[in-house]
Each structure stands twice: as C-alpha cells, then as structure tokens.
C-alpha cells in the first residue's frame, strides 16, 4: 500500500546538515517524510564526510544512512574521480553501482571509460566492466579491477595494452587472459601477465556482486 506522503517544496536552495551528509541543492529539495527520501530534482552537491565522498549530480535522491541515487553524477573520493550516467550508493555496505556510461580518473590513471562499474568505498576498489578503455596508460579491456589506494590494476579477459614509448601493443585473448599493472603517478607503469596470487585473490574477490 502506498504510504501517505507529504511533499514539502522549498523554493530556495538551502544547505542542510545531516549526521553524515552535507547537501547543497542546486534547486528544489523535496523531502518525503513518510519514507525519509530526499530528492534534489535539479541536482546539487552531496558530501559524505565520513567516507570523504563528494557527489555532484544533475539529479540526486537519497535517504540518510541508506542510499544515494544520482543521475549525471560525478563522484570524487580524494584524488579519485568517477562520472556516471546513473549512480546507486548503498551507504551501509559502502558500495556504489555505476551505470549508463562511466568515466574514471586517478593520479595514476587518466581518461578511463567503461559501460558500467562498481565501487567498494571501504576497500577503495573499483570494478569496471564493458568496453573498458583508458587513455593514459592506453589500454582496452573487458573488465578492470583497480585498487585506488595502491595503484594496482588488473585487466581481465580480452585486453590490449599500448605503450607508445616502447612502440608496442600487448594483447591478451580469451577469458583467462589477464594483465596486472602497478601504476603510480609520474612513474613508469609496471606490467606482468603472471599476476601475484595474493593480488589475484584479493582483487578478483570484488568481482562477486
């Protein structure tokens, strides 16, 4: 049964303080008192201070301590940035689902795009799937797992990795193909096809939903 809802429309953009979130609406802010869901139909800026998250989106819908949903969103966690057509942040689990086209950048990785992605905000690990393509370093992959704290990146399935400096392109074929990259800002990338077992175990664990 549809619960009774009370909508309060506020004509001014007001900043609201919550236990964890700081919200700066770009326009209206609609609060459904029956469900506790707040909607920013014109988007705005949402900060999760606890996890160091800053979300800027054209549309935001959130429930304190439960979820944040956003469209045309940009999510920053420190020097790591994500953009997505749609974002679904499960606050308790600390997980974010990105869909509708994803862009990702970090000090060690620039210009990465994919069809979709998932973030584990506690572990700071991102999983990107579908048409994964990065500009620097230049590679394409079917699936990518990145530990944003260590700069470790795992490419899985068919991939192609280009190094213009070396003048080479490395490709891996088949579902078992994999490439382990150790990236750091301002440093030569390290790459190996034989992934250290500990790294493989740790990063592939995030492939499970």
């Amino acid at each position, binding site marked *: 049964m549809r619960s009774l809802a009370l909508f309060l429309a506020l004509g001014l953009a007001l900043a609201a303080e919550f236990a964890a979130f700081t919200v700066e609406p770009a326009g209206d802010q609609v609060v459904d008192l029956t469900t506790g869901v707040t909607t920013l139909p014109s988007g705005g800026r949402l900060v999760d201070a606890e996890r160091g998250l800053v979300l800027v989106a054209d549309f935001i819908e959130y429930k304190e301590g439960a979820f944040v949903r956003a469209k045309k969103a940009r999510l920053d966690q420190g020097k790591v940035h994500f953009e997505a057509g749609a974002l679904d942040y499960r606050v308790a689990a600390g997980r974010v689902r990105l869909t509708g086209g994803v862009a990702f950048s970090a000090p060690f990785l620039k210009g990465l795009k994919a069809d979709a992605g998932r973030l584990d905000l506690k572990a700071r690990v991102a999983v990107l799937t579908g048409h994964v393509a990065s500009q620097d370093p230049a590679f394409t992959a079917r699936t990518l797992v990145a530990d944003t704290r260590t700069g470790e990146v795992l490419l899985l399935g068919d991939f192609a990795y280009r190094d213009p400096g*070396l003048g080479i392109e*490395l490709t891996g074929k088949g579902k078992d193909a994999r490439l382990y990259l150790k990236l750091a800002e301002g440093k030569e990338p390290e790459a190996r096809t034989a992934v250290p077992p500990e790294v493989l175990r740790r990063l592939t664990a995030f492939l499970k939903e």
Partner: protein
Amino acid sequence: MGRALALGVLLGLALAAGCPSAPYALKTPLGRLVGAGLVYQGGALTLTGACLEAEGLRFQSPRIVYRKASGRLSARAPRGELRGFRFQAKSLTADDGRVELADARFVRGGLRVTARRARVEGAAVVLAELAARTPRYRFTAARGRLAGGRFVAEGVAGTPCRAGDALALSGRRAVFDVATGRLLMEASEVRYYGVCLARPARLLLDTRRPPRLALPLRFSLEEGLSLGVEGLPLPEEGVPLGEGRTRLTLLAEHLGGGEAGVTFGLAREGAGFRMGLDAGGGFALKVWAPGVRSERRADGTAYLALAPAFALGPLTLAPTVATVDAGGAYLGYGLEARARLAGRVGEAAFTLAPWALALAYPDAPAFAGVGADVSVAYRGLRLRYARSHRIGAPRSFWEAGRVAEVASAGLAYGPFGLDWYRDFAAGWSRVAARWQGPVWLRLQKGFGGQAARLEAVLGYRAPDPGPGGLALSPSLGYDFGLGRVSRAGLTLALADRCLVYRLTGGAVWAPWPGETPGVRFALGLSLL
C-alpha cells in the same frame, strides 16, 4: 624514437606464419611477438615462452627482454628460421638497427654453419669466425654471408677428411649453392700433407658426395715393365673435382722386354683418340666419335668408317662409308642397322639387340653380317646368348671383330654364385662356383682346348683399416691340372687419418683364355 626503431628492426617486418599460438601477443606497427607471459618492470620488458615472427625471421626463445633505456632487445637461446636457414644461437640482440647473434648455428639442406658472431644485414646474414660442414666436407672461414639460398665465405679452408686435414683445400672465396650442394672455390689450392698439388682458379666440389679420388695408376710386368695412368680425369671448370669428363691415358709399355712403346690418349663423352708409338717405329692410332670410327694398327692395317647414326624408335640406322687398308685398299659403302628392345614382365627383365651390317666393296667381294644378343634376368638368374652369321670374308679387323657365338648363365643366391660361359667358336667353356665373404673361394672348371683345367682360388678380403691401420687381402690360386700355383694376389690397404691407400698386385702364371700372364699392380685411393 630511436628505441622504437631498434625494436622495429627486429619486429618491423611483415608477418610470416610460423609461431605457435600463445595467450599474449605484442604488436608493433610492423611486427608481432607472442608469448606465454610478460613482465614490464624497471624499464625492462620481458616476454617468456616467446616467439617472434617477421619476414625472413622467425624464432622461439624462452626469454626475450627489451630494455627501454638502451633500446636493446635480447633473446636467450633463440631457435627458428632466419633468411631461409634454420638457426639456433646462444643469444640474439637488436640494438641501434642491428640484429646480431652469438654462437649461432645455421642449417639448410646438407649445410651446417656455425659462427661465433652473425649479423643481419638486409636480406643477408653476415658471419664471422665460422665453421661449416657438409655431408662430406668440413670448412672454416674468416667471414661469410648467408643470402638467397647461398653461402658465400672468404678465406676458406676445407677438407674432405673425417679427421685431420691430410688432404686440404683452401680458397680466397667460396660460393655454396644450397639447392645443388655444389661449392665453387675461387683462387683455390689443393694440398696433400702441406704440399701443393694444384692451384685451380675455380674448383668445383659436390659437397654431398666424397670427392672422386681417381688415381688410375697402372704398373705391370708383362713382357717388360709397363707403367702410367689410364683414364685419369683431367680438371675441368664447372665440373666437381675428380669428375672431369676428359680422360687422359699415358702409358709406357713393355720397357725392357717385348716391343717397347708409348701410348697416349684422350677421351671425352663418346669421342677420343688413342695413339701408340713403339720402338720399332710402328704407329697405331684409334679415333672414335659419334658417326666416326677409325683405327690404324701398328702392322699398317687400317680402316676409317663414317657412319652417322639415325634413330627411329628402338631402331638405329647408320649409313656407312668405309675405307679399309688391309692387304689392299678398299672403299666400301653400306648400311648398319641396330636395335635394342628391352622389356620387363613381373620380376623378369629381357633385352634383345639384333644387328645387321652390309658393306659393298666395288673392288672386292661384299661383306654382310647379321647377329643378335639376347639376355634374360630373373632375380638372381641371368642368361645370355649372342650369335652372328657372316656372309663373305671380312675386309678388316673391324668387321671380323664381332662375336661369333657365345652363351653364358649365372645364378646368385646370397653369397653363393654359379656361372657358366661358353665360346662356341673357340670351342671352350667354363663353369665357376664362388663363395663371397670375408673369406672367398672360386672354383673354375674349364672344358675344351687349353681351357680344360680345374682351378681353385682362395682369398681373404679384409675390411677397411681404421685410421693409421693396415689391412692385407691376399689370394692364391692353384691349378689342379698343372699341379702348381696358377695365380696370386695381394691388396695392401694402408690408412692415415684421412685416406686409405690401396696397392693391389696380381700375378697370373696360368691364364684363362682372354687373360694375359704377368704381374700387374694398381694403386687405389679412397677416403676413410
């Protein structure tokens, strides 16, 4: 840029098929590497279980490393194909546009080349400090090149010897054609124990066969001393060593006994001449060529026949014009017809060779002859019968010299053999039984005239001696009819580290028809 170019020299060639499939591939704008695993760390790219494909180059290596800073690519123990040669090496490096191999070995056809260093230059591989081996020769050279199925070396020294270099060849330059196995040495020198035997400007060797060490020395004590060479192949440009088609005969005969004389002759592919001059002023000459036969004997008898042959299938027709000078000079003309029919039914083979000759002499009675030679072979059995009929008196020894009627049969079964021969015109025949093995025995029983006798010959054929060894092969014949030794023979085979020298001596005291008594020696030479 330079580094990418260095890598590109190796990789930067159009792809060629050959590498097995591998999970990882490295692609450059122009080339491709595949491998089982890759590590890029510290500016070094390492590919394990790797294979490289490029035009004219393909190799597998357990480990290929490319160092970004130096732009140097190195492969450990590469093994594959380079410019059409199979190769393996201790290492391969590509640096500043140069591809080099260390301790490389190249194989193609019967040629194996090892080089301390090898460098790829365009379509060629340049070698240094190299050694080469073919089925029958070993070579060393200061420098060499592999290109287009050819191996060109400079400063070449070689030998056909399995060990040592008692027989040594050297040349300023050598060109080896892999397809034919022929090696042409330029400005060469042939040495025997360091003594220069010849300095041919161009020496051709067939490296797939041992050189033919023809040494047809003859030495006999028949009516005096005879010695010389008979059928010695003369060196010839474009023909492998020892296989010259022009053969020399030079014999001094019957020195100190009988009619001493000198014989000199040259022969080449069905044509030649042989002339003899004896101490009494007698002169003999024999000339032969396709369509021409001529002979003059020391007694003054001679003939000259011009008989160009025309083949009509198995039939050969030879219109003949002949001049005969034997107790009078005659000019004759006529026709000779010859045929050779050969066939095979199952394991049986037969040949039939009939002939007919008719010569008209306007100033003398005509001569005609007809004959045939039939032979049949079936496994170890051979049968032959030849017979001719003559009409009119032969005008020359040429006409008279044709077989009248002979028959022979032979049976071979393993080491055992049985032979029968009969000369109907001469009225004698012979049956021989033989056993062939290291120890061999021949029993011959003759019937009719001087051939009516029984002879047994027992011999031992020693295997070739090893390096530095000696082997003796003696034989002795006994005539039971005469009650004395009929013949004796001994072959002395002496080997150094390279060659086997054979001195064969034979003495015949009781000859069979067709044999001449006396003592003869021959020298033979072969490679160990």
